[in-house]
């Protein structure tokens, strides 16, 4: 019975479980049992969303696009949940990362968040998950804005729960910039509604081609570009990301780094290719003239800034800004293979960056800080975590056998197909910068002798199993998708082909 309601269940399950998680017995109290119960509930919900995502992916690959009318109203009037290959692809990533975060979250959250807030932390997490899944599932423009706001608001709350007082200012800054970005998207949607009188994305796509002359459409396109790149943290508008990721609770950085910006990239795909269709976006509005220079700047500046960071979480946050630059560079090449490469890198980067921040969570759990000096001698003390950082770091650089290599390979092909030598050199140059900041950590971990005075006597031992297993699942995924790309490339390929006309 439930199979034909999959699309809506994907959102309703986490939506209902969020208040339920707050209503759980002993919620909001200090005792451990209540917090463990809340964690267990949240993990179960994440697992169910992942299973639903798998079923949806199977359904989509068998029967093509799923269209679900909310409340029984036909599309142009009612809200239509529309899942094509692109949405199924992102759903899988978001729910998989949610599961892995939740699996590893128990001990780390116990240590970092005030005990009475833990059950509310999990319910806010579920709300954030609802928002992210909702954005990907819905086919209605305004509904995307609503779900985007749900996920952003809950992620502001989650970031503000960090135990460092800088988390508050980081969350505040993210709130201001995030709201401005979302409001820009809202203005864009409003202008489109004014022109066409409909909010359904497919309906909009049919009506826009004959409106190309109107200036309001140009204004709407401009608002979308700024709003989405603000949410995406594309270089000039990325100022909120480093602080937000560095001072948030470690498990939240793991979740947000692998999903939030990815969903914003999905919005970019949905609006600029699903709504505006790629000819309009590139021939009419020349989006590539904006995307390519900004992405090149993002890759070079963010990577070089990352090299000089002392706080490793900030370093990986800047590296995330650079990696987003890779994705937008892929898209900016304005060809199908470019967007496929961008999609592929989105998938691979979610695995690698999620893993790296999970390793950071292990280190914070054991040593309490992520300053570079604190890494001295960790190679011996926490061998499994450091080995994971090394292997995932190689993935970030793009060494063969890792997922990073595959996305670098396809990005290079897409760039060199058009003899765009600048983009090719930047792609390759970016990975050189990645070598520099990854090796800074490796050298500290394996070559420096630990300053015995720093670790207050207690011997730093390896991270607990519950955090290591998810970490090594991600490392295994990094290698698996480095070798067998039938899923990651196949799905991205069909997704882009269905999206592009």
């Amino acid at each position: 019975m439930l199979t034909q309601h999959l699309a809506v269940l994907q959102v309703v399950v986490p939506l209902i479980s969020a208040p339920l998680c707050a209503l759980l017995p002993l919620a909001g109290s200090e005792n451990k049992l209540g917090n463990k119960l809340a964690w267990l509930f949240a993990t179960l919900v994440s697992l169910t969303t992942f299973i639903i995502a798998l079923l949806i992916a199977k359904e989509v690959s068998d029967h093509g696009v799923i269209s679900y009318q909310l409340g029984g109203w036909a599309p142009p009037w009612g809200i239509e949940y529309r899942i094509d290959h692109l949405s199924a692809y992102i759903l899988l990533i978001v729910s998989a990362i949610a599961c892995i975060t939740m699996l590893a979250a128990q001990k780390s959250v116990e240590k970092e968040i005030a005990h009475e807030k833990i059950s509310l932390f999990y319910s806010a997490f579920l709300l954030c998950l609802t928002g992210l899944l909702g954005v990907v599932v819905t086919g209605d423009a305004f509904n995307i804005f609503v779900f985007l706001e749900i996920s952003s608001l809950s992620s502001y709350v989650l970031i503000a729960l960090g135990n460092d007082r800088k988390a508050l200012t980081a969350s505040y800054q993210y709130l201001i910039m995030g709201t401005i970005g979302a409001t820009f998207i809202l203005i864009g949607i409003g202008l489109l509604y004014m022109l066409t009188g409909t909010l359904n994305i497919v309906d909009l796509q049919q009506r826009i081609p004959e409106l190309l002359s109107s200036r309001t459409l140009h204004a709407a396109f401009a608002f979308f570009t700024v709003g989405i790149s603000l949410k995406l943290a594309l270089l000039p508008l990325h100022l909120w990301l480093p602080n937000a990721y560095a001072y948030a609770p470690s498990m939240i950085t793991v979740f947000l780094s692998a999903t939030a910006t990815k969903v914003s990239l999905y919005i970019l795909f949905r609006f600029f290719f699903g709504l505006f269709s790629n000819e309009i976006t590139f021939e009419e509005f020349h989006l590539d003239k904006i995307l390519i220079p900004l992405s090149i700047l993002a890759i070079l500046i963010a990577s070089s800034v990352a090299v000089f960071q002392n706080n490793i979480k900030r370093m990986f946050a800047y590296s995330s800004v650079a990696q987003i630059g890779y994705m937008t560079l892929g898209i900016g090449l304005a060809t199908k293979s470019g967007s496929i490469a961008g999609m592929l890198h989105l998938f691979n980067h979610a695995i690698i960056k999620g893993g790296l921040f999970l390793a950071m969570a292990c280190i914070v759990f054991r040593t309490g800080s992520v300053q570079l000096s604190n890494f001295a001698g960790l190679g011996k003390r926490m061998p499994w975590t450091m080995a994971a950082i090394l292997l995932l770091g190689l993935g970030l650089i793009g060494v063969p056998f890792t997922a990073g290599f595959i996305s670098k390979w396809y990005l290079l092909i897409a760039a060199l197909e058009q003899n765009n030598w600048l983009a090719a050199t930047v792609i390759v140059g970016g990975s050189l910068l990645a070598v520099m900041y990854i090796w800074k950590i490796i050298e500290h971990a394996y070559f420096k002798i630990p300053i015995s005075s720093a670790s207050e006597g207690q011997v730093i031992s390896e991270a607990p199993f519950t955090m290591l297993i998810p970490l090594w699942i991600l490392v295994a995924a990094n290698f698996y998708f480095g070798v067998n790309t039938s899923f990651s490339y196949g799905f991205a390929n069909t997704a882009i082909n269905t999206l592009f006309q």
Partner: protein
Amino acid sequence: MNKKRSLILREACNLIVPAVLLYALYVQFHGDYGPGGGFQAGVIFAAAIILYALVYGRKKTQKIFPASLVRYLISIGLLLYAGVGVASLFMGGNYLDYNVLAHNPQHGQHLGIFLIELGVGITVAAVMIMIFYMLDEYAD
């Protein structure tokens, strides 16, 4: 905070609060065919409670509306909203399809709108009161 407000304030408050609560309920239950609905009703309801709390102090209000109850109300309101949706799922229609809720679509729509607006009203009122309680705690 414990010194009592002047007599005039307390008397005026006794007059206004019941009227505002009644008006809130009116707006709540006439939302489907007239102006009104969950959001507005919730806010008016909360305004009445907050006025009472301003005049009689947070402690007395918390005897009527304890903080834990308000917290539960937030979740219950949202669950009611989503519950109606899931109910229509189980009754065979799509999510939030009110036609299947009752024997004929007309009543189903009416019932659906009514319950949804009630859920929204509860949540909005509870959230507003909770915000007031939180900011009030910061004050002292």
